[in-house]
Every structure is written in structure tokens, then in C-alpha cells.
């Protein structure tokens, strides 16, 4: 089944956004754990920063990522004419 150009463009944009957000997810998770001792030198709201990230900071980033993806994709659907009626 041949896909039109706009369809392919849609999928490529989706892949790019997925990769970018996956990178954000990765950065909010693994380096934050690996470098926790270094981060703990700083402090935020009274918490050592590394502790804060694992307890609250990374969680806020996750919520934001999922919110942004839903918004971005729902707009992209419309732009490329693949949105549900």
C-alpha cells in the first residue's frame, strides 16, 4: 500500500519527536542517578539536589514529557490529515 508523502512526513516527525523525548527521559533518569553525589553538593528546597531529583524532580519531568507528547501528536494528526473525525 503506497503511503502519501504527507503520511511519511508525519511518521518521520513522530519518530524524531519520540527520539527527542526519549532522550529527555533518559537524561532525567540515568545521569541523575549516576551523578547523584555530585548533584548533592547543591541544594533545592532544603533537599540535596540529587535526592530531590529522584524524589520529585524527575517525576515532574516525566509528567511534562507525556503531556507535551500528547499535545504535539494531537496537533500533528490534524496537520497531516490523519486525525480521527
Amino acid at each position, binding site marked *: *500500500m*503506497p*503511503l*502519501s508523502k504527507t*503520511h511519511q512526513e*508525519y*511518521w518521520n516527525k*513522530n519518530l524524531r519527536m*519520540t527520539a527527542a*523525548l*526519549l532522550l529527555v*527521559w533518559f537524561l*532525567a*533518569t*540515568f545521569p541523575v*542517578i*549516576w551523578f*547523584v*553525589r555530585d548533584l*548533592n553538593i547543591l*541544594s*533545592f*528546597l*532544603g*533537599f*540535596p539536589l*540529587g*535526592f*530531590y531529583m*529522584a*524524589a*520529585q524532580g*524527575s*517525576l*515532574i519531568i*516525566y*509528567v511534562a*514529557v*507525556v*503531556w507535551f*507528547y*500528547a499535545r504535539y*501528536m*494531537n496537533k500533528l*494528526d490534524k496537520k497531516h*490529515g*490523519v*486525525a*480521527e*473525525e
Partner: protein
Amino acid sequence: MASRKNNHKIFFLSLSRYYGFYTGGFIGFVTLLAIAEQMGMPNAWIGYIFMAATFGLYAGIGVMSRTADISEYYVAGRRVPAVFNGMATGADWLSAASFIGMTGTLYLSGYDGLAFIMGWTGGFVLVALFLAPYLRKFGQFTIPDFLGARYGGNVVRSVGVFAAILASFTYVVAQIYGVGLISSRFLAIDFTTGIFVGIAGILVCSMLGGMKAITWTQVAQYVILIIAYLVPVVMLSQRITDVPVPQLMAGQVLQKVSEREQEIFNDPQQLKARELFSHKADEIDARIKGLPGSLTAERHNAERGLARIKAAAAPDASAIWGAEQSLQNLPRNEIEARETWEREADKLRASAKAPHPHAEPFPGENEKVRDTARLNFMALAACLMIGTAALPHILMRFYTTPSVKEARQSVFWSLFFIFLLYFSAPALAILVKFEIYTKLIGSSIADLPAWVAAWGKVGLVRIDDINRDGILQLAELTLNPDVILLATPEIAGLPYVVSGLVAAGGLAAALSTADALLLTIANALSHDVYYKMIDPYASTPRRMIISKILLLLVALVAAYCASLKPDHILSMVAWAFSIAASAFFPALVLGIFWKRANKWGALAGMAVGLGMCLYYLVSVKFYGMAPWFGIKDIAAGAFGVPAGMFTLVVVSLLTPAPETEVQELVEHCRYPQLMVDTGGKSV
């Protein structure tokens, strides 16, 4: 089309109104109980009323949502709006372990416990990016359905069914165990009766209305559980810091905890107590080495002691009883002796161990131990995340939204509602630690608050004044993780109605997760095995009957397993994540993102991933295999997922590409609406 959209809107508005009234009603109900308590209503009544009201509510929703429609039974008619599906997923996700156990883990492990917080929230990023919208577009009934359609044939489907049941069953047993624990404690009935009361509550709901009833009950359960979690945390924060926002204030409290830690960790009496525990453990170790002779010696000692008491001029009845008891409690044979004594020595060593500061990441004596702890933290967080994005009872919730668009939004709402609890849990752990370190440790054992004795009776709190100074040192206090949350209202000096509320919340968390898991298992059997493999021409009523009978059977088997109070099963719960991650994640994600993935690759990938994961789990846990890179069995998915992923890719490339129809199915899943679709018809 416009009218369908309109209908959705009307449905959404009336749902919002119902649940708005319901939430208000629940708050009113709790307030009334609080007033009644002030006027002298006994605590036991409060427990009964809470249990009766919540069970009655869930059963009522179940009865109102009864259905004979296949699509309603399996996927709630696919008309659950994003926000409500988010709440249902939240209740589905937040289990007895998240609600009760996790606060305790955070209290006991400090920073290292946060792997659970990150893992159980970060996983939803993967659900959003890789799975939810595509599975919704695919739009069947179960996760093995997707595997069956994407990879063709019943073999891949069967592996999926096997893995789904394996991951869900231990998990559901633990939920039912939790239900038994809470209802037995708050209704003062025995544990087994508690379990069957709980099972009745689950079955009324899921048997009558399947996914539809479960969904609407879960929304109600979410409301109860989040109120039940937040009320004590907010009140505790208000009491300690005068600000009712625990998440903001916990940092300052953590600083005070850290200061206090320095004092109590280095208290000479604390050091002495630890030394005494260590001595006692060494004595028991010597006894284990001296088996079987040492057991005979112990028995002689006990018998001689009993004889001496009996021979005394005025024998003391209670002393005789005590001595007889300790003689009876001696292990009967060498194997039993080894087991009990080893357990005892472990407990003593745990008390003797140096406590570590709450905020310190990866504590350990040397750099190597610390590095292994860091690696374990990362592996565990990764396994929990990937497992989240692979557990069938979570993924199937995204089949129930009206559209792909709402499926995406619904992942956001799910994560948001889950986040509300996980965001507060580390703060609660810090606040409770502050209370215990400042109010309990260092005070006289004779006048400890009443909750210590109350929870001591059920064995969740243990105090052992080993240095006999009459003052409680940190090493002398042993807390079971479950007690932290359950006792929070009492620790904070809140009225009993809050304790009842917390119990109702824990019950809601356990019941809602158990509902979904039982349905997942029963659906895998009735839909995937019976309908898709055995009798594809079965009529709708027949399929419904089979589903319900299987649901009942699975529930009874799970309840029976829970009633045996299996230690192993409970420690196996965390395995579910590694199992699901290793078996499902590669096949699901590559099935959507890589058209070249084929049947043989999926089959080999799932088998190798699952096999690797199980091999590692069982060898490390039961056969004493040295862990690879020091990674604990709980994070076995760290090996299973890469192995499965790699095998899937290699085997797919070595075998022919999948047929055009399969590739078209993949394209169909990738676009919410594909106009050039084969004549507009769905695959």
C-alpha cells in the same frame, strides 16, 4: 459523526457530575464519622462502617454496570474518557505494595528506595511514546491479541498468554494477601475469612460487568485511595511544620532528620546495643555450627530449666507455662533448627548493622559496595520502567478510550494521578522518620506511646532493650515496612477515623489492582485460549459464560494461594516487572516500530528474553548462583530485555520478512486514521 462527538461530551459531563457528587459525598461521610467519633462512637464501629460502606459502594457500581455485551465486558465499550481512564489506570496501577509497602521501603532505605518512585512513574513515558496510541489504534481485546495479529499464528499468542499469566498471578496473590491483612485487622476477623470477604467484593464487581464494571469501580476507588493517602500526610506536615504542603516542607525536615541522625547514630548506648546484638548473632552462629549436638544441648537446658522451676518450693504457674512453651518451641530436627536459627541470626545482624543516613545515596563500607549499589539502583529503575510498559493489566486499559487522541491524553492523566501519590510518598517517609527519631528514640521505654504496643501485638513493631538501660535506642527498634503508613495516623496523633480512612484506602488500592489482574488472567484464558484457539465459532453468550467461570476459578485459586501466607510469593511480586519486561517489551515495541520484525524473531525473542529472566531469577534466588555484576534477582530484566531484543532482531533478519498484510497492519497502527487504507476498511 458530529452527534457521536456530542454524545461523548454529554457522557463526559454526566460522569463528571456523578463523580463530583460522589467525591463530595465521601468527604461528607468521613466528616460525619469524625463527628460521631468525637461524640463517643467506639473505634470498632468506625472500622465496620468504613468497610461496609466501601464494599457496598463497589458492589453497587458492579451491579449497576452489569453487562452482556462482549465489547463492554472486555474493553468497557471503548467509551471511557481520557481523564476517567486515567483515574482507573491510577487505581489499577497503585497496588497494596505502592500504597502500604512503599512508604515503609522509603522510610527504611532512604535514597535507595527512590528507585521505586522513579521506576513506577518513568515507565509511563515509555507507555506514552511506544505503546498506548498504537495499541488503541489496533483496538482488540487483549495484549496477546496484538501479538497474535502482528506475528501471526497461535504459537506467539500462546507464549504471550503464558507470560501474561505468569506475571499477573503472583501479583494478584499479593493483592489478595493485602486485602486479607487489612480486612482481618480492621474487622477483627481471621485472615482466611478476610481473604474470602475480599474475594467476594472483587467478584461481585468483575463477574457482573467485566471491564466496564471494573473501570467505574476503579474511578471510585482512586478517589478513596488518594484522599486516604493525602489526608494523613497533609495533617502530619501541618503538625510538624505548620505548613500543609508536605512536598515543599520535606526538604527542611530532612535537614533536621540529618542533624538528629548524627546524635542518635553516635550515642554510646546505641553503639553498645549494636555490639550486643552482634554478640548474640555470633552465639547463634556458633550454635548452628555445632549442629546436631547443639540442638540436643539446647533441649537438655530447657528440660533442666523446667524441672528446676517445677521443683521449686512454690512453683510459679506462669513460669512453668513459659518454660514449657520455650521447650515446645525448640526446633524439632536439625533442618528446622538450621532454618529458624539462621533467620534469628539474620534479624540480630540487621539490628547490629550500622544505620545509614536517610539522604545518603548508596551507603556501603567501600567504593566497590557503593558502586554495586548504584548499578543495582539503575538496573532496578530500568526494569520497573520497562516492566510498567509491558504489564498486560496496564496496557489493556488503553484499549478502552474512545480514540487514539484520548489514549495519548489518558496516559498523561494516568501518570498525573499516579504522580500525586508518588510525589508525596518520599515526603511522608521523611516526616514519619522525623517523628520517630525525635519523639520515640531516646525516650523511656516504659512510657512509649500506645501505638507501639498496639502494633507490637500483631508483630509489626519490635522493641528489645538489649542494653537494659530503659531507654529506646535506634538499634533496639525494629519496624516492619507495612506499619509505617498504617500507623501514620496514630504516630501523628490523628483521630481514629483517619486510621479507618487509611485502611479503606489500602483496601481500595489492593482491590482495584486485584480486579484488573484477575480479569487479565481470565481474559487471556477465555478470549485468547478458548475463543481464539479452541472454538473460534463460540457464540457470544457462551464466551461470556466461559469468561465468568474462568474468572471465578482463577479468583478461588489465587485466594487459596494467598491463604497459605506464602513468604516466597510475596518476595516474588517484584519479579512480575522483570518477567513482563523481558517477555513483552521487545516484541511489542519492535512490532510497532520495525516492520521487518517477524514471527520467528518474535517467538525466539520472547522465549529467550523470558527464559533468560527466569533462569537468572531462579538461579540467584534459590540455587545460590553468584549474581552477575552484583545485580540482584529483582532486576533480572536487566539481562532478559537486552537478550530478548537482540534475539528478536537477529532471528528476524535471518528469516524472511513478514507478509504484506502484516506490514499493512503495522502501518494501520501507526496512523490514527489512514484514508488510503485498503478501501477505508480496517484490518
